């Protein structure tokens, strides 16, 4: 499934506005923010249609998957937006992760626990908030809920001169960042090891570069750790290293591929946008001097001009004049 979908769900008391644009969207946040009520409305609409008194506006079918015969039901669903509450006991099962891979459905999952087997994006972790007080709604006696992003990692406020740069990537990405940050740059060797590297460092200032498109399961605990310890670590989470290359105007990339990736990254083929960008880059550089491979960085990406192009699209706060 591809595309971006606005979903409006309401009865005479509550009104939800959501937008989903990737195969996996996670809903978290405080108790009583309306997550379970949202799923209840979808379930009641599904069972009773218009006679439920509930209205759902969406270009795709919205459905709820529960513990009951979930494998059978999921196998039968296609081109749907599937909502799953945290009460589903299968969310952490390998079988579920396998069925999400290659599925032509989108999933909206309520879960505070990390789902380590699913590579969801830091961009698609949301809370729900009551926006009834906003002027466009305050004439109605209803509760209006919309999604808000839990982690805004793109905003790096102050200049960072890191004593240590940790990259999630161990191959091409690491090789590239080493060109920028030199001896300060170390590979964590995988997203689950980024915490260990930060934890074991005694440097005063740390920059961690991770693939935002799949770092979702790890971002919550890392942010909690940084908040609890006050450790000075900036997390830079572009979609992926390959996304940076595509965005840097090194090869011709249609603008829409990057700005409307949801129309291209088919969930049938790609479990995350990280996989899509890598595939796109590999396919489109095959017979060029910029032939890309994830395992080893093509020397042409280490040319000063190319490095400058990529640096230009990174936040200036993490690019020191010395680099």
């Amino acid at each position, binding site marked *: 499934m591809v595309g971006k979908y606005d979903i409006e769900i309401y009865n005479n*008391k*509550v009104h939800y506005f959501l937008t989903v644009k990737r195969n996996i969207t996670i809903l*978290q*946040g*405080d*108790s*009583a*923010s*309306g997550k*379970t*009520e949202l799923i209840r409305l979808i379930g009641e609409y599904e069972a009773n249609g218009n006679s439920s008194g509930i209205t759902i506006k969406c270009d795709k079918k919205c459905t709820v998957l529960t513990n009951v015969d979930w494998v059978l039901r999921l196998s039968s669903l296609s081109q749907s937006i599937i909502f799953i509450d*945290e*009460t589903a*006991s299968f969310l*952490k099962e390998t079988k579920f992760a396998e069925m999400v891979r290659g599925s032509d459905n989108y999933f909206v999952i309520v*879960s*505070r*626990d*990390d789902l380590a087997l699913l590579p969801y994006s830091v961009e698609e972790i949301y809370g729900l908030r*009551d926006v009834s007080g906003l002027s466009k709604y305050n004439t109605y006696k209803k*509760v209006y809920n919309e999604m808000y992003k839990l982690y805004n990692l793109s905003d790096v406020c102050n200049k960072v001169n890191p004593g240590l740069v940790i990259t999630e990537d161990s191959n091409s990405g690491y090789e590239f960042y080493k060109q920028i940050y030199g001896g300060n740059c170390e590979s964590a060797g995988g997203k689950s090891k980024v*915490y260990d590297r930060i*934890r074991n460092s005694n440097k005063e200032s740390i920059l961690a570069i991770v693939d935002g498109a799949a770092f979702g399961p790890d971002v*919550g*605990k890392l942010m*909690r*750790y940084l*908040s*609890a*310890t006050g450790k000075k670590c900036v997390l830079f989470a572009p979609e992926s290293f390959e996304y940076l290359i595509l965005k840097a105007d090194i090869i011709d990339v249609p603008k829409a591929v990057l700005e409307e990736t949801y129309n291209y990254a088919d969930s049938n083929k790609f479990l995350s946008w990280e996989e899509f960008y890598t595939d796109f880059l590999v396919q489109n550089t095959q017979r060029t001097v910029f032939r890309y491979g994830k395992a080893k960085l093509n020397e042409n990406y280490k040319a000063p001009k190319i490095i400058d192009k990529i640096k230009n699209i990174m936040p200036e706060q993490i690019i020191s004049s010395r680099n």
Partner: protein
Amino acid sequence: MLKIYYGDLESNSYIFNPDIFFNNSYEDEWITDPISVQMIKDIDKSDVIGPKVIDSPFLGSIPVERLSGGVKTLILMNNDSEHIFNASACGDNCAKWILKIANKKDLTIRLGYLMDFGTDDFDIEILNLGKIVHNRRELAESVLDNHLI
């Protein structure tokens, strides 16, 4: 004292889905208990009208079964000492209540995420490690160093 088991728990007394468990096990007097009334007001912003009716500013008059999963879990923690409840059904806004309940009695819960217990010192035993931690830094480091979640 609060005792937390982090990660996946297999035990006959473990309740993964406290929301449903509550619906089928709560007693009327649990709802009108003053601490329940306070928790329902704080978390759900709702008033207890009686043991069977809640007045929610969002949903109107609702039965007890429509309380949030978080507040249902808190009420269970306060009233049912036989089971270990999945506190991942509770958001951060429930943390202070979990600490309050655990001040009165030994409370064992299961968590799958790093709940924010606030900046004040506390005593929490991490059951997986048999270790008592006293602040959120110690808690985060102990849980993550040992890859409990």
